[in-house]
């Protein structure tokens, strides 16, 4: 069995925040005991709303932020144990792209210069060939050669995102973490970039960690999906299974929130209330105040991820009763 290319084991990450001007410092867990694994060449999607911790998880997975607890393993190597020189080598293998391509690009440099830069930084290949490599990368993301000498301000949103992608992929990484890469794009351009990612994944044997709030895009691009709520994973499994027949009440609400033309609005599963403040975390299952199926156990015990039999795991007392942890 091929080992997972990326493994997160029990990752936790907290932040300190000050409440008000004179308040005390409060810590809250943005990510709470998250364990994930990503197989080589596959796409794992992380979905959730704001406060779910999905972006933080992505950053921790890449080593951009240290985890307070738990381990991150890339190809079996524990990221916290390695020295700076090895880190730099690993950087070539793990890259990230974000939601806003304009702020990810330097406004003053041309596109070709920016795509070439990683090659220079990591000293990849002979120097005189680097420009050709960068140009070839631009072509494979579908950017016409005439764009190479333009600056980011002269390109459209979709073109910029392609440029960012080219820059991330020019070092031939094994893992690409994408944090909402298509959310800011028009629908027609979204489709272009989604197809591009799928094609590049096939041709470069990329593994993708795809962070998004858009379930429709997630369904299109990923094989497995993990649903997060307030820093914890509540359901993980095969994308088609989770999205067509969600088990966890929160997954059900998320899926039901996606508009379906023609369906009367009243048929949705609509949650009460607001996503809670991570500083004031509800006891037991963090979702229980908004859950339509809540039971007394839910307030007292935090549910563990339990296998459901069809390859999925769910953390819910109602779905998998009997497995509790105080």
């Amino acid at each position, binding site marked *: 069995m091929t080992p997972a290319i990326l493994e997160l084991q029990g990752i936790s990450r907290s932040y300190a925040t000050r*409440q008000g001007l*004179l308040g005390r410092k409060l810590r809250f867990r943005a990510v709470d005991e998250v364990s994930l694994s990503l197989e080589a060449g596959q796409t794992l999607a992380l979905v959730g709303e704001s406060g779910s911790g999905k972006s933080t998880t992505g950053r921790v997975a890449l080593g951009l932020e240290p985890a307070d607890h738990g381990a991150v393993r890339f190809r079996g190597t524990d990221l916290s144990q390695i020295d700076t020189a090895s880190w730099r080598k690993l950087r070539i293998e793990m890259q990230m792209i974000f939601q806003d391509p304009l702020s990810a690009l330097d406004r003053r440099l041309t596109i070709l210069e920016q795509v070439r830069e990683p090659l220079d930084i990591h000293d990849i290949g002979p120097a005189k060939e680097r420009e050709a490599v960068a140009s070839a990368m631009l072509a494979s993301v579908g950017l016409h050669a005439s764009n190479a000498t333009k600056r980011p301000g002269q390109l459209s949103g979709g073109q910029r995102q392609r440029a960012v992608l080219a820059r991330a992929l020019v070092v031939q990484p094994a893992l690409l973490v994408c944090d909402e890469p298509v959310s800011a794009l028009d629908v027609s351009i979204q489709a272009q970039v989604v197809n591009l990612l799928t094609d590049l994944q096939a041709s470069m044997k990329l593994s993708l960690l795809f962070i998004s709030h858009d379930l429709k895009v997630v369904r299109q691009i990923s094989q497995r999906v993990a649903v997060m709520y307030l820093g914890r994973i509540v359901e993980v499994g095969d994308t088609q299974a989770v999205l067509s027949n969600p088990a966890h009440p929160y997954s059900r609400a998320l899926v039901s929130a996606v508009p379906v033309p023609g369906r009367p609005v009243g048929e949705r599963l609509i949650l009460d209330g607001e996503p809670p403040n991570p500083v004031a975390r509800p006891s037991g299952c963090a979702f229980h105040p908004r859950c339509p199926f809540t039971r007394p156990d839910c307030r007292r015990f935090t549910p563990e991820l339990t296998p459901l039999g069809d390859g999925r795991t769910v953390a819910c007392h109602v779905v998998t009763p009997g497995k509790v942890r105080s």
Partner: protein
Amino acid sequence: MLRYLLIRVLRAFITISLVVTFAFIVLRMSGDPAVSIMGDDASAAAMEAFRREWGLDQSIWMQYFLYIAAICHGDFGQSMRGGGSALELVLSRVPATVMLTLPALLLKVAIGIPAGIYAALHRDRTIDQGVMVAAVAGYTIPSFVLGLVLVQIFAIWVPMLPTGGTGSLPHLILPVVTLGVGGAAILARFVRSAMLEVLGQPYIRTASAKGIPWAVVVRGHALPNAAIPTVTIIGFMVGNLIAGSVVTESVFSWPGVGNLLVVSVAARDLAVVQCILLFVAVTMVLSNLVVDFLYGVLDPRLSSGNSTAGN
């Protein structure tokens, strides 16, 4: 809110201490008071006696320590030029300065703020460009040049106003105008950009979409938001009430603190100069404190907590 203020007070104290120390050191390194006060041709023995009398023969650290100890007792030293308490001397000059700077401040506010608002409301039109050109002229012209030009025009060519000195209302006009123009110009530019920033915000469009007439939108929705950054600048100007008139007082022979400062620095009258600098630092710092407090009052986002979750 309390913690917010306490931190500010602590910082204020540190600032004042730094100013006092800096002034102390620089003054003692820049020249010998004995020479300035007694003249070049005084005998060495006389100068030595002078130094001993004023404690200048001791090490700089000793002098500093004694100075701080004296301040803690309220003793700000004696004026080397005329004897007498430095503090009393400075205090006696303060009313004259305030008589200039306070009306000047009012002038700055009365002209600068409306000009800035008006320019922002008519952006890029002739009136806006006119105001901006006037503003640039206003704060680039050095105050002594402006003062001298005004004197030339209104006191010499058209002898309506006196050239200097104090005594009556007409004496007040030219110096106040000289002082006020620069600040009015700065304020106008600042208020204009604060207003433009606010007018571009989404909530202004919402207010219009609610059917609020434009005048009310400007008055009730835009101005309260533009006031927040404007308050800083005005606070700075208030802080400058004592220190800001040095050049103008010289041009118009106005017997205020600024004039005293110039004379005392030239004569190396250490105690007086230090006393004035301490005054200036305290006024500045106090006005900044008031501004910080006002921020908390004007901007509700500062006083209550935020409850935004991370991602």
